């Protein structure tokens, strides 16, 4: 087996090892993306509201 | 006493009461919280003949033998002080080997042999690469498996 093949095979435990890393990446990455999007939205909302308030005065 | 101190005192009292209650509950259910009995515990407690129990310990060295059909196994589980003969038909986990921990679930037959319906492997807290093990064995500092850890446990 080639070296790269051996790396992906994980000594015959590829399914378990890669699933574990995949789940960790999906959950923590998903939470990061969600948190960041909501953060961006909150900034946009505050800016819009401040502009609205400024225009009305 | 300010309101703040009052709240702090109430919190401390609540946490203390909660801690005490937890200790009481845990000690009351102590027997139900163990996942398995060691062979000596199994012999010390009178277990009803048809009750399913789990026994755990180390698979005794040189005790594993395979049946003719390659799916039936017999081995002995030991805790250093006592040991139990186990019969099992099925697949063994990858980590199952002599000198390593295992937990068998099944019934103790009247003849003192444990008929297992499932066998799980238990590993110890040691992690190291192959080369380190070889080096330790060469220098004579090697202790087989988690023998010490498993035997010390009660």
């Amino acid at each position, binding site marked *: 087996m080639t070296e790269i093949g051996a790396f992906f095979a994980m000594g015959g*435990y590829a399914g378990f090892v890669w699933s574990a890393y995949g789940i960790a990446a999906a959950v923590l990455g998903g939470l990061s993306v969600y948190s960041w999007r909501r953060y961006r939205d909150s900034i946009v909302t505050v800016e819009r509201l401040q502009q609205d308030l400024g225009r009305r005065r | 006493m300010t309101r703040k101190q009052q709240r702090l005192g109430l919190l401390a009292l609540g946490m203390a009461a909660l801690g005490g209650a937890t200790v009481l509950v845990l000690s009351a259910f102590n027997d139900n919280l163990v996942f398995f009995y060691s062979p000596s515990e199994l012999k010390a407690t009178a277990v009803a003949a048809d009750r399913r129990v789990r026994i755990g310990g180390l698979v005794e060295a040189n005790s594993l033998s395979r049946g003719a059909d390659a799916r039936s196994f017999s081995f002995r589980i030991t805790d250093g002080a006592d040991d139990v003969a186990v019969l099992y038909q099925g697949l063994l986990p990858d980590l199952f080997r002599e000198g390593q921990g295992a937990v068998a679930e099944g019934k103790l037959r009247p003849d003192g042999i444990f008929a297992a319906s499932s066998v799980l492997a238990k590993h110890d807290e040691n992690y190291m690469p192959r080369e380190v093990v070889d080096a330790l064995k060469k220098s004579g500092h090697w202790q087989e498996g988690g023998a010490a850890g498993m035997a010390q446990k009660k």
Partner: protein
Amino acid sequence: MINWLANPARFMRLSAKAVPWCSWTAVLVLAVGLFWSLMVAPPDYQQGDTVRIMYVHVPAAWMALSVYLFVAVASAVALVWRHPLAEVAARAAAPIGAAFTFVCLATGSLWGRPMWGTWWVWDARLTSVLILFFLYLGYIALANAFDDPSRGGRAAAVLALVGVVNLPIIKFSVDWWNTLHQPASVMRIGGPRIDISMLAPLLIMALGFTLLFAVLLMVRMRTALNERRAMALRLNAGAIPAPRPGREPVVSANTVVP
């Protein structure tokens, strides 16, 4: 000290600087940690390559416990001293802790199947970590259950404090009772029982997870403070406060209108 930290304006100023810095450090540390875990670290003499699952499983477990402790301490500060930032911090941290706990449970299951021979057992360690996961879910549900956020916050804070008894149970379950899970390898009396070639990537991954937690915590706290500010601006403008996304006020048939 607490008073100094509990100033929302000061938090916004400091975290604005800290977030980018921490983010890039977290990315760098996690990249090094992943490379080390998957490529450099040797296979275990008993468990072969499945030992690589340890490098996410164990740091996730440490985070699951320490984030819960963080939530509980912040809840206590919120209950006793009524500091405005403490409750924001506890609420922001809980979902991160729940995510780490889920990762710990899922990766543990994927490790247990090939090595122990089972996805799951009801031993004291596994069961107490599952309870921790439900405590997180209960906290999140309770914190968001009321239209009046301060009421939900107080109930959730009490739950967080009650759940603290679970932390020593998780930590010492492997010593107090016979479990299928092995005893502690790193934080134990007498030093770690892991070879340095495996301990190094484990600690790097743990540092990476801690940095990730710090970044997510700050970002989520900033979000909460922004949303709070948006609410205040709406009230200021005389508009009806718009409900937070996904949390429409429920008017049931038996709501008593005074």
